[in-house]
């Protein structure tokens, strides 16, 4: 046989038929005294198709993207897919005030630090 790959293809088709690729979105992570800031590229994702879950010590980012095209595809370099990425949450994030903003296909997630975890400047008194 020309190539062994043909035999290695999965045969449990029921689950593979509707399989969509899940891709890791590219992110930048920044930090300053007040917050952690996460920027993620999620082109093609609208607000309704994006979910951000804060678990105990994990942040899960999931987005679903459909290109919904009826026209005939002639050349493809990208396709409908899901974005998914998990992050370990740093200590001391103030969960209640996490905020997110989606603009031009970029997600901007702000994770403020709890008051107790912010660096504090300690004054040294002259004795």
């Amino acid at each position, binding site marked *: 046989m020309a190539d062994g790959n043909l035999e290695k293809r999965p045969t449990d088709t029921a689950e593979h038929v509707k399989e969509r690729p899940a891709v890791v979105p590219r992110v930048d992570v920044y930090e300053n005294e007040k917050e952690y800031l996460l920027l993620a590229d999620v082109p093609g*994702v609208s607000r309704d198709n994006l979910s951000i879950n804060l678990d105990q010590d994990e942040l899960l980012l999931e987005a679903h993207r459909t290109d919904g095209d009826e026209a005939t595809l002639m050349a493809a370099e990208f396709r409908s897919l899901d974005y998914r990425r998990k992050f370990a949450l740093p200590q001391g994030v103030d969960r209640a005030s996490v905020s997110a903003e989606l603009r*031009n296909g970029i997600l901007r997630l702000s994770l403020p630090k709890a008051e107790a975890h912010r660096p504090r400047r300690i004054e040294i008194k002259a004795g």
Partner: protein
Amino acid sequence: MFGYIGDLDRTLALMDSLRRQMDRTFDTYERAGRNVSTEGGGYPPINLYDTGSGFLIKAEVPGLTEKDINLTLNQDVVTLSGELGADAPEGYSVHRRERAPVRFSRSFSLPSQVDPKRVEASIKDGILTIQLERTEEQKPRQISVKAS
């Protein structure tokens, strides 16, 4: 007998090469991203559709706005160029940087002539959509057969 097996082998080989080609296309997508790759395109990744009366081009351009993109049409060649600057916020330390700034220029020729006056482009959610219409001469036409 041998002829039959040879045919089967050829068919399977053809299927396999097709599958590999598809794998490559998708692999490239997953790797390409913002790094300008030489294989199978570059930045931005695009999809080309045939709408019958014209073409539809979609490009992934997260972070770009209409101001950042130059779109030119010369005969049947579309050129997309522009620059995506760094959007790093001031006064932050960096933990991870995967989204590099990029300057790009990309041209592709369309399969047929398009009407330069009827081009529309828009950006939504980081996806650039360009709509082009074929020139009248290039449009598919139905020819009715007359009874003589």
